[in-house]
C-alpha cells in the first residue's frame, strides 16, 4: 500500500540541528511532561502505589499499560505512515535473564520501598 511518506521522517538529529543545548532542552521539556503526568496519575503517593499489589487500587497497572499501549500505537502508526523511521528508534537491547532477575528484584523493592 502506498504510504503517505514525508521526506523528513523522525527521529530528528536534534543535536546536529540545535547543538547540545537544544537537545538537552528538548529532553528537559519531555522530562517535565513525564514528571507532570506521573504526579497527576498519583505516582508520588506511596500508599497509592503499594495498593496496586494488594489489588485495591490498580492505578499503577492502568497508568503504565495505557502509556505503553498509547505510545505503541502512536509509534507504529507514525512508522506505518512514514513519519517515523523505526530503524532509528532506540530499542533496548535484550539481555534476557539479567533483565528478568533485575525486574524481580525491583518488584520486591517496590513493595518494600513504596515507589
Amino acid at each position: 500500500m502506498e504510504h503517505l511518506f514525508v521526506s523528513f521522517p523522525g527521529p530528528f538529529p536534534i543535536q546536529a540541528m540545535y547543538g547540545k543545548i537544544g537537545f538537552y532542552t528538548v529532553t528537559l521539556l519531555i522530562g517535565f511532561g513525564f514528571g507532570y503526568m506521573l504526579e497527576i496519575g498519583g505516582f508520588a503517593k506511596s500508599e497509592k502505589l503499594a495498593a496496586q499489589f494488594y489489588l485495591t487500587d490498580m492505578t499503577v497497572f492502568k497508568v503504565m499499560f495505557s502509556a505503553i499501549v498509547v505510545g505503541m500505537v502512536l509509534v507504529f502508526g507514525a512508522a506505518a505512515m512514514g513519519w517515523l523511521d523505526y530503524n532509528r528508534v532506540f530499542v533496548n537491547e535484550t539481555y534476557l535473564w539479567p533483565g528478568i532477575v533485575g525486574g524481580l528484584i525491583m518488584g520486591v523493592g517496590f513493595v518494600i520501598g513504596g515507589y
Partner: protein
Amino acid sequence: MFFVAGLTVGIAIFSNTVDRISDFWNSSYMGRYTLMDWLHLPTGVVVAGIVIGAILLFWGAEVIENAMNGTKPDKQQIKYKVIGAVALSALALIVAFIGQPTPLERYQKFFPEKAQQLANREVQIEPPELLSYIANDHVRTVMLDVRDENDYNLFHIKDARHVSMDDLPKLSNELRKMPSNTLFVVMSNDEARATEAWKILVGESVDNIYILEGGINNWLATYNIVNEEERLKGTAIAFAPPEPIVAATGPDTLRYKFPAALGDQYPAAEPNPEEYEFDFTPKVKLKTKAPAGGG
C-alpha cells in the same frame, strides 16, 4: 527523601559489585530483539494483539478493584472507557492494515537524495579505492558479498562476508550499531544485485555504504596478475581469461573460470597494496553518527 537516598546507595552498591557477576550480567544477550522477531508475526498483528489484550486486562483490573473495594462501577465512566477502548482498537487495526513500510519503500521515500547519488555514480567506488580502505587502519571496512554461494566459494575478496539477499533486513540491525568510522561495501559480480542490496540497506538506515564499481569482475580485472616467477615454477594459480562473449554469460555473472573453489586463497583476494598505485577518483565520504540510548 529516604527512598531516593536508598536508590543512590543501591546504585552505588551495584556499580561496585557488578564486576564480580559480570558473566551472568552479560549473559543471554539477544541484541535488538523485538516481539515481532520473537513471535515471527508482522508488527501490525503484534500491536493490535497487545491493544486488545490490554483492554481485556483493564477490564479485569476494574472488576478486581471493585470487588476488593466493594464499589460499583460508575455508569458515566463506563461510557468513556468503552469509547476509549473502541477508539484505540480501531487505531490499532488501522495501523495493522496500513502495515509497516518495506525496505525498498523506505529507500524510495526516506532517501530520495540517495537515488540521485546512485544515478550520478557517486556511490560506486573503484577497486583501488576499496583496497585503500582495506589497508587503512583508521577505518573499519566491512565487505558484503551478495552473490550466490557458489560464486563466493569460487573466489571472494579476503574478509568479505557472504550475505544472502533475504538476510539483509536482519543484518541491517547489526550494521547500524557499528561505530561510525565503518565503511560498508556491497559487491556482486557486476553491479546489479549489489545495487539492489545497497538500496535495501540504505532504506534500512545503514550509513556509509557504497557499491564496488564493476563488482568482482572488475576487481579481478584489476588485480588478477599472475606472478611470472611463480608461473614458471609451477606454483602459481592460474586463471583463464574472461569469456570472450559477454552475452553468453548474462548480466551480473562471474566472468572468470577458476580451477578450484578456493575462496579467498587466491592471490587476487588479498592484493598487496604496496604493489599498486592508488589511482582513482575518491568517492567515499564517511558520516559520523548522533548518539541515542536509554536509561
